[in-house]
Each structure stands twice: as structure tokens, then as C-alpha cells.
């Protein structure tokens, strides 16, 4: 902590110094006017040529946009703390472990955005129309989420269904519409952001890549220049030399053994998953909440030979287990809690999600304690052959995705949940960083960072966001909101607020276009059918273009080889004749 404060102050002092001593004026011409012609030419060619993948991100990467973005991000001084932390992690452990922390920082920014949206559009107006809270606060509410918190802006039940207006005949604020539109627009923005990030990542990391990265790219393209710790460098060099040795002598027996181990692990995990899901379902029916973490105790594959393919490290079994548990809990909430006669079922669901988020956060910290701290103690004192543990990137990222899924589910029922998750993620960042520095050793397995990052984004999009959208969809369209609490009390469904609003708009001539859009575009099935048809046609066209280009590339390669062979034959013949 002191190092960061020191560096932060140093950077601030540098900048102040440069402004006050006019160093900026003295130095910037030399700094920025370039005399390297090669650099100039290549940079010009790179930014003007369409050499990068021709996705629609080409237009987003105009030079001035990028410059503006870079400048803005560098001048956010608060990010200086993250920058230093990321630099230290990258220096000692390399880009693979760094990708986990970069992903965590990205999720933090996401939650910050959703917290600001919800706080600004829903919570602040609610403060103006708040009812007094008669309950008393004991410290236990922080753990259960019930009690005092029930009558606060934390949960859906507290929000009013009235139209708030402080001034007589002044502007009014319709809470029902605000609530449903804020949540709806937030999810649309999330969907678009994730879709574009995933597409950009996929274009860059998967389209041109061979299925198996050969020796050439392993030797020349994978040396990690950001590692600056002497021990880490030596370790990486040792791993590389072992890999090269094994690759020159690898046989098929080792491969079969690996496949057999994987099949056994899969069968065991699927069995555990089914057992855990049934257990969770029956326990929640009986109103007990238990989070089975048995799968977390299954040890991850140790550093068995350096040629183990890193893609298999990503535990698909973990994903299946977690997603099925979330699915069962959603089913329980939507079918059983919502249909029950309780006074305010949305607040009950919100409390459940709050408790789940809290328990997940505690288990994350405990996982760090047991998986890294105790394992280091065991590895250095009791059983020295085990050695220091490695940072399990796959498992940790899946924990993050699970936590984010819970937050997304809970946004409708507890609008301030992203704020709580933000605090949790910040604590997790620092705890994981400290644990990493003190307990772990740099990874010995090959980890294809770029492709793994794309897979993580894909997981965040496909089972996670899409699943949450379907849950939210079912809640908004089909379920009856509770009678006595919340902004939608008395309506037949949450969506009925929008249809009633459209009906009131029909009587105003100025807003006839809104009504027309609603009836002909949003609620009409024909429009979505046509839209899907157009999207499919474009996707098919792009697919055919890519196929054609691949065939062209193959043909051109063959031509190059033929031409060079032809030349060598001609030289041989000439030499023979002479």
C-alpha cells in the first residue's frame, strides 16, 4: 500500500514539476516530433492499410479515436493504482495470470457502470419519496440481508409505484416506467457491449489461427517480455527447454494415458454434478440453503509433464455444475416463491440473492486461504515434494463469472446489488494479489492467453448473460408482481406498466409515432422475423466470403512453392548444361 501511495505521489510531483519548471515546453518538441523514418512509414501503412481483420471494429480504430481513448485512460489517475498492481503481477507471473486480474478489473468497471445507472435513475428519485424506516438496525442484517434492510432502497419492495413530483404542476417522475426502462436499457447495453467485445476478440484470436500452435510460433512468438523477475525468467527458460526436449521425443503412449485420465475425471465430475443438483433442489424445497463446494476440493491437474494442452485445463465440468445450480435456484424462485402467498416475494428473492453473493464472496476468500496459503504451508514444511502451488486461473475466472451471473439475476430484485458486488470484487482483487505474491509460483503449463480470454468472454455471454436474460424475461412477462409492495403493485405483470403507458399515449397526437413504433415494430412478430432473416443472410454471405478466401490462400501457397521449385530445376539444368 505504501509503495503505491509513494509512486502515486511521485507521478503527481513529476507532473507538477514539469508544469511549474516549464519542462513540458522544453521537452515536448523533442519528445513528439519523430525523426525515425522507418517507424513513420510502418505506422502510416499499418493505420491506413486494411491489414487488420476486416470486422466492423476497423472504423472504431481510427487513429484519432484511439489517441483520445489512450489519453483519457492515462489521465485517470485513480487507474494508476491498478496500473502499478498489474505491472507487478505481470512482471513476476507473466501475461497468463495477468489476464485473470485484467478480467476482474473489467468486471469491476462493468459493475460500476450498472451501479451508477441504477443509483442515478431509480434510487435517487426514491430518496425523494421515501417512507420512514421503523425497524431497528442490528449488525446481523449485514449477513442475512433481512430485518432493517427490508425497508431500505436495497430491495425492490421499498420502491414506490407513484409518480413522484416535488413541485405542484411541475415535472413528474414515473417510478414504474423508470424502473422497467432502466433495467431493460441496462441489459440491452450489456448485451451489445459483450457481443461486440466477443466478436472483436474472436476475430483477432481465432480466425487466422491454426488448430495447434506449432513449434515455430512457440519459439518465436511466445517469449513473455513482460516478465522481469529473475526467478520467473529462469523458470520459464527451464520449462521451454523441457518442452522442446519432450516434443522431439514424444510418443503416443503418453497421449492415451492422458485421454484415459480425462475420461475418468469427466465421469466422476458429472456424477458429482447430478448428485449436487438433486441435493440443492431438495434442500431448497425444505428452505435450507447449502452450497456444495465438493467440486472445488477436486485437485486440479498438477504440472504433469510440460506438454499438457492448456485448453483442457478449463474445467467444463465446473461450468456445468455451477450453471445447473443457478438454473435450479431460478426455477425454485420463479415457480415456488413467486407463486407462494408471501407478502413480498420479490424482496424474498432479493434477500436470497444477497445471501448467495455474500456466501460466494466468503467462499472465494476461503478458497484462496485453503487453496494457496495452506497448500504452500503443506508444500514447504510437511510434504516438500509438492512444492509451491500455482495460481489456478481457470477455476478463479469461473468463480468470477458465477458471481457476475448472480449479480445480473439480482439486479431486478435488488437494484443496489452491483455496488455490493463492486466492493466484493475490489476486496477479492487485493486478497488474490497478496495471496499470489506470497504463496504461488509462476505457471509451468502453457496457457494460450488470447484464446482463453475469448473463451471467458464467450462464457460470460452465452450461458451467463443469455440465461439471465431469459430469467428476467420470464419474470417481467409472466409473473404477477406482489400486491402490497414494489413499483408494480396491482398490475397483472411488470410489463403491463409499459402497455398501460402506451395506451395513455394514444390520446396525445404529438406522440402518435411512439405508439406506431410500439405496435408495428416492437410487438409485431413479422418485424423480428424479417430482421432475423436479414441477419442470417448477412452471416451466410460473410461465411461464404471467408471460405472463398481460405481456398484462395491455399492455392496461392501452392503456387509459391511450385514457382520456387521450378526456378531451382531451371538453375540445376543450366548448371548441368554448363
Amino acid at each position: 500500500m505504501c509503495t503505491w501511495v509513494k509512486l502515486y505521489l511521485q507521478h503527481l510531483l513529476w507532473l507538477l514539476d514539469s508544469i511549474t519548471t516549464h519542462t513540458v515546453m522544453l521537452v515536448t518538441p523533442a519528445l513528439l516530433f519523430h525523426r525515425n523514418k522507418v517507424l513513420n512509414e510502418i505506422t502510416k501503412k499499418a493505420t491506413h492499410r486494411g491489414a487488420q481483420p476486416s470486422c466492423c471494429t476497423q472504423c472504431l480504430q481510427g487513429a484519432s479515436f484511439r489517441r483520445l481513448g489512450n489519453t483519457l485512460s492515462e489521465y485517470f489517475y485513480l487507474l494508476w493504482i491498478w496500473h502499478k498492481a498489474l505491472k507487478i503481477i505481470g512482471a513476476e507471473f507473466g501475461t497468463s495470470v495477468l489476464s485473470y486480474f485484467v478480467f476482474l478489473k473489467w468486471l469491476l468497471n462493468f459493475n460500476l457502470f450498472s451501479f451508477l445507472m441504477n443509483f442515478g435513475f431509480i434510487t435517487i428519485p426514491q430518496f425523494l419519496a421515501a417512507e420512514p424506516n421503523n425497524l431497528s438496525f442490528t449488525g446481523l442484517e449485514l449477513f442475512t440481508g433481512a430485518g432493517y434492510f427490508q425497508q431500505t432502497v436495497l430491495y425492490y419492495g421499498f420502491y414506490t409505484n407513484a409518480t413522484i413530483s416535488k413541485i405542484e404542476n411541475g415535472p413528474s417522475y414515473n417510478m414504474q416506467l423508470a424502473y422497467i426502462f432502466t433495467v431493460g436499457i441496462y441489459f440491452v447495453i450489456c448485451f451489445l457491449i459483450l457481443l461486440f467485445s466477443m466478436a472483436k476478440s474472436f476475430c483477432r484470436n481465432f480466425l487466422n489461427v491454426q488448430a495447434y500452435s506449432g513449434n515455430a510460433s512457440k519459439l518465436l512468438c511466445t517469449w513473455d517480455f513482460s516478465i522481469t523477475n529473475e526467478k520467473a525468467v529462469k523458470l520459464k527458460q527451464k520449462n521451454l527447454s523441457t518442452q522442446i526436449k519432450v516434443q522431439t521425443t514424444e510418443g503416443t503412449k503418453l497421449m492415451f494415458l492422458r485421454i484415459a485420465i480425462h475420461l475418468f475425471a469427466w465421469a466422476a465430475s458429472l456424477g458429482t454434478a447430478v448428485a449436487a443438483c438433486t441435493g440443492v433442489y431438495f434442500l431448497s424445497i425444505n428452505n435450507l440453503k447449502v452450497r456444495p463446494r465438493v467440486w472445488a476440493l477436486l485437485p486440479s491437474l498438477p504440472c504433469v509433464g510440460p506438454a499438457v494442452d492448456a485448453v483442457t485445463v478449463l474445467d467444463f465440468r465446473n461450468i456445468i455444475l455451477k450453471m445447473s445450480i443457478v438454473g435450479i435456484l431460478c426455477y425454485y424462485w420463479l415457480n415456488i416463491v413467486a407463486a407462494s402467498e408471501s407478502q413480498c416475494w420479490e424482496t424474498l428473492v432479493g434477500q436470497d440473492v444477497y445471501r448467495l453473493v455474500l456466501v460466494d464472496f466468503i467462499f472465494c476468500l476461503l478458497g484462496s486461504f485453503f487453496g494457496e496459503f495452506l497448500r504452500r504451508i503443506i508444500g514447504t514444511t510437511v510434504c516438500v515434494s509438492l512444492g509451491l502451488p500455482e495460481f489456478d486461473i481457470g477455476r478463479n475466472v469461473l468463480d468470477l463469472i458465477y458471481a457476475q451471473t448472480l449479480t445480473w439475476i439480482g439486479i431486478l430484485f435488488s437494484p443496489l446489488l452491483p455496488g455490493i458486488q463492486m466492493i466484493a470484487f475490489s476486496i477479492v482483487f487485493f486478497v488474490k494479489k497478496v495471496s499470489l505474491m506470497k504463496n504461488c509460483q509462476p505457471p509451468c503449463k502453457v496457457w494460450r492467453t488470447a484464446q482463453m480470454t475469448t473463451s471467458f468472454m464467450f462464457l460470460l455471454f452465452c450461458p451467463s448473460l443469455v440465461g439471465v436474460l431469459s430469467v428476467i424475461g420470464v419474470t417481467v412477462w409472466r409473473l404477477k408482481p406482489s400486491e402490497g409492495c414494489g413499483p408494480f403493485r396491482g398490475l397483472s405483470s411488470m410489463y403491463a406498466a409499459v402497455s398501460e403507458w402506451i395506451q395513455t399515449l394514444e390520446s396525445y397526437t404529438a406522440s402518435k409515432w411512439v405508439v406506431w413504433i410500439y405496435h408495428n415494430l416492437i410487438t409485431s412478430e413479422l418485424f423480428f422475423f424479417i430482421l432475423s432473416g436479414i441477419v442470417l443472410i448477412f452471416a451466410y454471405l460473410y461465411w461464404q466470403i471467408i471460405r472463398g478466401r481460405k481456398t484462395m490462400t491455399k492455392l496461392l501457397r501452392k503456387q509459391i512453392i511450385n514457382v520456387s521449385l521450378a526456378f531451382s530445376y531451371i538453375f540445376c539444368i543450366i548448371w548441368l548444361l554448363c
Partner: protein
Amino acid sequence: MHQCRLILWNIVLVYENINDSTKSLSLCLRLFYRYRDLAPQLVPLDYRGRPAVTLPYGLIASMPELKDNPFRQRIAEVFSERGDGNMTLDDFLDMFSVLSEMAPRDLKAYYAFKIYDFNNDDYICKSDLEKTVNKLTRNELTPEEVSLACDKVIYEADVDNDGKLSLEDFQHMILRAPDFLSTFHIRI
């Protein structure tokens, strides 16, 4: 107050003339101060007269970001003006801006190629590859293993079958290695 406005105008005017999107004012200032910290008595604060200050390779190689990198000598040689590892401020800025995350892939590929080309003949031939492999593995492999690994690399990556890798072969290989952008990166 008048001086502050002058300074700000200066920054805006200079900034608009940047013809290289890999640089930003903040990064350049930081790099200038790091350069100066290496030898405060040699590097003046006033750079208006474009003083001919060159820092010796020994100082550059002592930076914490470079001191354990097995390729530090080649990096310094590639970016220095005379190819001897002694760097002026311009060379220093070029080096760290190419190695920053803002540099485009083509630029990084061009300089990575020059780093691995030990004999500076615009081709990565087998001897260059052998030196690279030895640096990557800390001379732990036997000469036969090194030779075998280099033969495999050339077999895989050589598109025009001339027994050595040209810049185009190297760039073609980079296209198929998506990690390159994140690994050829030094944070400063």
C-alpha cells in the same frame, strides 16, 4: 496564470502535430523522466536545442524492466542509432513505444523480426534461430536438440522454401499466434 495558459496552448499545438498514434503525452513525459533518472548528470532538463546525449548500453541494461530479459542486448542494438546499444532519447522513446500496448501488430512484428535477426541480413537463418533457442533455454539443450528444433521451425514457417525466414514468413506466423500482441509488451 498567463504562463499556465501559454503552457496549455503549447501542449495543444504540439499534440496536434503528433503523427504517430503510439505515443501519448503522458507516456512520453514518464519515459523522459525514466531516461533522466538513469543518469541525471548527463541528461539536461532543457531539450530545446536537441542536445546530443547518448546513454551507454550498460545503463539501459540496468533498468529493472530489461535487466533479466535474455534479449536485452539485441533490443538495445536494434533500437539504437548506430547499432551498438547506446541510446539517445529518441531511440529510448521508440523502443518503449513499440513495446507498449498501443503499437500496432505490424510494427511489433517488424521489430521482433529485427531482434531475432542476429546477423542483420534481413533473414532469420538457421544460425540466428540457434542463437535464439539458446537464449530462450539458457544453453541447456544439446547442439543436436537445438538443431532439430530449428529444423522444425524452418520447415513449419518457411513459405517460399529458401531455408530461411523472411519478414513476410515471420509476419504470416505472427498472424497465427494471437498471444504475440500481449507477450511482446513491456509496461513502463
